[in-house]
């Protein structure tokens, strides 16, 4: 046997991938629709925007989860709606940011010319907001390790609260400063078409909202919504023959955090974001800093750490209000990218944007992070 090989050589250049279409459904607390209906609506609109048809697709990647869709192998239901009939198609159980990356990799590999990534999120439950939250937290708990973490009640929200408490205990932040940050995000997004928290909020409003787990209140947590978002990608040559929008993905990065036992998800919660950003920016190469950024901070206690990890302090951050304005669960990664694309519309060629998304299945534990560097083309 040969001696084990050491670290693999540095990563290689990756072919650019263009974004030629993007569309979303309406975002509602609960859609009266099946997942395939939402997927079809978003994919159809995104393809139409690009002047493409289902027959042009080489690959469809869906982001969804069986347990949320309330059926096993729910990709059997959504594949055709995503344009996958008699084509390459698969489903990622995770955030749509990973679906965009997988679709981009397929285009960059030269295997397909056009691919669509779609995230859909409409948990198959009904009832009050509190009921829906309980359902999501129950599913979150089931995704934790069964012997130690589940019995103590670990959930995504529990990880956010533990980190926020640590943040307050070890920095100058307090509940009021977190509330001011949350209010600013909500207010910035309010009035926009995709906002689900439609009214501006003050810090007092945030502190008056239902306490969830100290120091977090309801309005400090993501604005849960349902819907679907589709992104159509194409090779540079194929993009030249498409209609509609044109932007270029020049960098992409994906990182996954450590598990509960490591503890750094409390003390250094931005570590996965830092790794994903480093990979994405290394691929994108030197250039001007991002002019716009959409980041996904599930609580205000994470906001500054994510801005720092992404290196986007000089950019316009979360013009949309971020996830505190609208968080469509597994579709979030595609929504953040859509928001960046809208903000780059009309910008000078080469103007750069950053799209950052996290999954919320196990919160900060084993957190999946995607970072995309996008340039106006």
């Amino acid at each position, binding site marked *: 046997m*040969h*001696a*084990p*090989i*050491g670290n*693999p050589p540095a*990563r*290689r*250049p*990756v*072919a650019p991938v263009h974004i030629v279409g993007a569309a979303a459904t309406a975002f509602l607390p609960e859609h009266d629709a099946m997942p395939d209906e939402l997927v079809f609506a978003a994919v159809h609109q995104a393809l139409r925007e690009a002047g493409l048809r289902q027959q042009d697709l080489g690959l*469809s990647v869906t982001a969804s*989860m*069986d*347990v949320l869709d309330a*059926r*096993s*192998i*729910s*990709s*059997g*239901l959504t*594949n*055709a709606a995503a344009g*996958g*009939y*008699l084509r*390459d*198609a*698969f*489903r*990622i*159980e*995770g955030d749509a940011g990973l679906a965009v990356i*997988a679709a*981009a*990799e*397929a285009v*960059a*590999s*030269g*295997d397909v010319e056009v691919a669509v990534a779609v995230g859909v999120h409409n948990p198959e439950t009904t009832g009050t907001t509190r009921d829906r939250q309980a359902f999501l937290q129950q599913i979150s708990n*089931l*995704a934790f*390790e*069964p012997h130690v973490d589940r019995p103590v009640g670990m959930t995504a929200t529990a990880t956010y609260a533990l980190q926020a408490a640590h943040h307050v205990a070890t920095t100058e932040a307090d509940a009021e400063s977190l509330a001011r940050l949350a209010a600013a995000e909500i207010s910035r997004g309010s009035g926009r078409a995709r906002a689900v928290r439609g009214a501006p909020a003050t810090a007092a409003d945030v502190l008056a909202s239902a306490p969830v787990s100290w120091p977090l209140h309801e309005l400090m947590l993501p604005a849960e919504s349902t819907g679907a978002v589709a992104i159509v990608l194409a090779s540079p040559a194929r993009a030249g023959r498409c209609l509609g929008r044109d932007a270029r993905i020049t960098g*992409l990065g*994906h*990182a*996954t*955090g*450590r*598990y*509960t036992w490591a503890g750094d998800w409390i003390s250094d919660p931005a*570590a*996965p974001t830092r*790794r994903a950003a480093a990979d994405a920016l290394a691929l994108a190469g030197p250039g001007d800093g991002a002019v716009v950024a959409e980041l996904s901070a599930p609580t205000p206690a994470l906001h500054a750490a994510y801005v720092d990890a992404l290196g986007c302090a000089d950019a316009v951050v979360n013009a949309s209000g971020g996830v505190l304005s609208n968080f469509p669960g597994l579709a979030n990664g595609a929504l953040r990218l859509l928001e960046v694309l809208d903000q780059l519309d009309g910008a000078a060629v080469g103007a750069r944007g950053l799209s950052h998304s996290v999954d919320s*299945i*196990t919160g900060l534990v084993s957190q*999946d992070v995607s970072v995309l560097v996008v340039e106006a083309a």
Partner: protein
Amino acid sequence: MPYRAAVVGVGITEATSPRKQTSSTPELCRLATERAIEHAGISPDTIDAIVTGNIDGFEGTVLDGKNITRALGIGDTVPLVVINTGGTTGGNLMQVAARMVRAGTHRRVLCLGGPTFFGSVDLQSAINTNSPMIIEQPLGMGAYHMGAFAASAYQARFGLTPEDLAAVVVADHEKASRNPYAHLRYTVTPEEVLAGRPLASPLTQPMVCPVSTAAIAMVVGDAADADAHSTSPALIKAIGMSADPYLGGGKGDFSEMQNLANLARRVYARADVRDPLDDFDAVEVFAPYAHMQPMQLEALGFAAPGGGVDLIRSGVTDIGGKLPVNMSGGPKCTNGGVSGELAPYAYAALQVMGDAPPDIQVPGARRTLAHGTGGSFFQFENLAVFETLTRSN
């Protein structure tokens, strides 16, 4: 700037039933990973991504890759991608990994298929939830009920007999008896197969797969690194998937696998395969039910419609035959869920690497075909063509 991808290491654990299994899911996954890394001759810290599968409704947990992959001994910050496409999950793991390498975003990716069925209490009930909810779900349709639709249609069109199905089972068991990793390593007689408990006509229990526990891992790397590995890598020459999500009512004919035939044409063109029977040295198909293997061999161009059973009965598909099929014993004898779905890819790659278990290695195999399938009324398929990658050293 696309690159080439190759399988550079494979790790398989010995399979058994959930009742007899003495290792936990994390232990099996870690063992398979260690074996794949050892086979590849690489350092564990050179893995730069993991692609794994979870089929939530079949397992006692949700996304258990979130914790299991943090304890594989390859570092706990490796990026994780979780795929779930049901029965095609395993094969799709390698396809996704291959594209990560071929794109250049990753250089060495671990595919991990765990023992999906370990925590299941009633698999048929879980599978029932993917059928249409107005009629089929209330009827209690499970996987083999839906599978029997195809068996019955094939029977009606081509005169398939229970004895034909038994012949397929006997052949699979004979092969599995030589595979040290297989679950059902005993031989059976046609009479035993026919005397088995009826499940859904024409299928008896010996004609359907067991519930196994095992794990399989594969390392997919940059083909340019071939010389640095301890193996002769398996070049991933061509890959493809095809989705036919139409449910029962929209399918014209259950007696042939048109979706697979379509995919085969596409993948063969990419690999420049012109005469499948001549061009492949071995094939591994995902055929958990006895009727599926002859139907798949037909769709893959190895036999004319209705000729799959004759091909199997002729000995062509046995070791030493012109086209050895499922030398592993196939999923009919070992089906650990995602690990079982990844198995055709693992064994097909091992054949061209020359590293299959000695008693099932096809001498001189240089081009093989791996197949995955999933679904019940709907059908998803995936295929991969492997070729021996010639090393310069």
